[in-house]
């Protein structure tokens, strides 16, 4: 019986978080981010003997299925990247953000302050601006400096 397995990804479940790319000891899975898209690339089959990628997948989207033989080549899945509402730069896949929107309690995402729509860098800036505005804004700002 061959030890080769196919990497099968359920594209409905996969959120493109790329955890699987971190753990594969043979680097059979990789990803690249463009301006609007993330692409995950998988080899069709795997001849290793671990289940690290399966185990790492939080969505149970990746399955290692017995295969008859090694099949050369790769296939890729594309994900739309969410772009930051402040700076416009892509930060995480839309599916990842959907999952976070669903799991983080509404309590922590006040109305009108959906920080989930911004990238981590802009969140830092927003927090810093928020703190600065609480009493430090009088610090030598000329009248037209109010933004």
């Amino acid at each position, binding site marked *: 019986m061959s030890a080769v397995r196919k990497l099968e990804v359920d594209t409905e479940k996969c959120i493109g978080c790329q955890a699987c790319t971190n753990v594969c000891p043979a680097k059979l899975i990789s990803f690249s981010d463009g301006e609007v898209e993330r692409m995950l690339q998988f080899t069709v089959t795997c001849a290793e003997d671990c289940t690290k990628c399966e185990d790492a997948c939080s969505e149970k989207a990746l399955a290692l299925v017995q295969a008859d033989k090694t099949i050369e080549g790769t296939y890729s899945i594309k994900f739309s990247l969410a772009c930051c509402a402040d700076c416009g730069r892509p930060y995480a896949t839309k599916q990842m953000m959907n999952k976070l929107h669903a799991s983080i309690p509404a309590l922590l995402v006040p109305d009108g302050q959906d920080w989930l729509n911004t990238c981590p860098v802009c969140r830092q800036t927003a927090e810093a601006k928020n703190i600065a505005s609480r009493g430090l804004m009088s610090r*030598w700002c000329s009248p037209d*400096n109010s933004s």
Partner: protein
Amino acid sequence: MKDHKLVPTVCPYCGVGCRFFVKVHQGHAVGLEYMTDHPVSGGRLCAKGNAALEFLYHPDRLKNPLKKANGSWEKIPWDEALDTVAEKLQATTNSHSANSLGFLASAKCTNEENYLFQKLARLSGTNNVDHCARLCHSPTVVGLARAFGSGAMTNPLSDLALADCIFIIGSNLADNHAPALHWIWLAKDQGAKIIVADPRLTTTAWMADEFLQLYPGSDIALLNGIARVIITEGLADKDFIGKRTSGFKELAASVMEYSPEKAASLTGVPAEKIVSAARAYAQANSASFVYCMGITQHTVGSDNVAACANLALLTGNIGRRGAGVLPLRGQNNVQGACDMGALPGVLPGYQPVTDADARARFAENWETDNLSPEPGLTVVEMMKAAEDGQIKTMWIMGEDPVTSDPNAKHVHKALAALDFLIVQDIFLTDTAKVADLILPAAAWAEKCGTFTNTERRVQWFDPVISPPGEAKADLWIICEIAKRLGFEFGEGYAGEVLAEINQGVAAYGGITCVRAASLEGVHWPCPSAEHPGTPILHTESFSTASGKGQFIPVNHQPAAEAVSEDYPLVLTTGRLALHYNSGTMTRRTNQILERVPNPEIEIHPQDAQSQGIKHGDTVNVITTRGNVTAVARVTDTIESGVVFLPFHFPDINNLTIDALDADAKIPEYKVAACRVEKGGPQ
């Protein structure tokens, strides 16, 4: 890692003189720990101190004596290097004169090293020994010596916590003496008023209650304007003036023309602000006056310092806790290098070379009859003399004049014109590249000795690790060369040299290794072993001949270089928080470089727009002396008409002017005329 030891040291960077522990594991400096009971810093440490260990292990560390041969460097043994230095020094003296020698001492090296270095120069028959204090606080040495009899900071930094008002002018201590801020916050918590005067809205200005944004070079107009308000509103301390000062009448007469309106027109600071600042300073119970390069680095630097001292004398804010004049010294040991006489006009302890008695005393101690009565050349004068061929041979220790001197292209030419240039340093600086002979020195953590911080606090430190390769402590190098010149300097034991200093420098009389190694160190003057040291100066009387503080009338004068149609912007240069001086150490520290990799020019949005320059653009900054590339940092923290460049990067000083203060001989780094154009390297 429990198997390391903690070795106390003093930070090699600035004049605050913070102490910290280096974690040493198997002879390697692997980390640092904070010394939370240090009286100055309380364990606090700026970014530079935090990253201080990195450069020790940089691959560029000089490890062997090097001789320039056919345009490249050849490693030579120490004996050959030391013999060569001695030969060249002697040959120059024999075929020309001792005054054809030039010595640059180091504000980064220890007291013991600076003491022996100037001793070697003087035993060789010249007073041509100077160092970078010339470029920073020489007006303090001149100006405060005239006013108070002593050019040193009068109170410790912790006294700032006791002030009701702190007047800060021409100092960006938040960036450059950061651990001192703790004391200012304590003062503010008690309601102290902080006044900051600076052409830039610096981080220091962030804590100000009053911010006076004055035009570069208009300090006398501001300070005289303040003096006039104090006098005309009856806020002067008549009792103090009567008992402890001379020259009030002349001073009062001299400031009368500086009405708030006139001062406002000269400085650009609104008249009401000048008046309210004056009232705040004068009405405080105890007011401290802090100043730095914004005051000193002008052709009127000595006069600027006098104007500062006048205010302290006018209001009796001197000689007691919380009240004093605090010229913040920059280098870790610039105070010490000055105290040790690494200056052309004075022997150790500030005794003029022209004073026959002083010369006689040293001649006896040093067993020589070769001491010259002629004051020597200062740093910038030495460069001009080198260019003119009067100085033939120079020995430069721990300084990088090609990077830090003004009108730097001339410096390069000057050094290249020398018959022989010896450079002693830890890295191949731009100055070292011009050398004929390079002596690899140990860094601070690799040797022992004392540094004197800006508070006159002498602190001893022991070696933490060994120097790399063949590098040696500067003290050893000086002693070895001295030996070959026939001088007996000993084998390079810093403790022995300190003992000699105890004999020759009255203020250091009781400062032994043991006392200096204590947590508090010792504030000079400390004339004897039993004397506790002197944290505050001028408490009973001043060190002037009369014992009284001297008012010195001074007048506003324009800077040497005015703006013109071709050069319409005022270029002022200064420092950043992350880098240090010429960048020899910080530009070899990744933690620093990744945060500030390149020079940025601060330019007002209006000035940028008129040249089509946007934030982040590469620009050329041009004066009549040079053209430098920088990145535009468009900001409204500087006024339209003024731009700012940090000098921590190569070639910045190609732009600055070598116009000097007549007495202190400091260059006017703070004012030059420039234009800024969109562009890049040509």
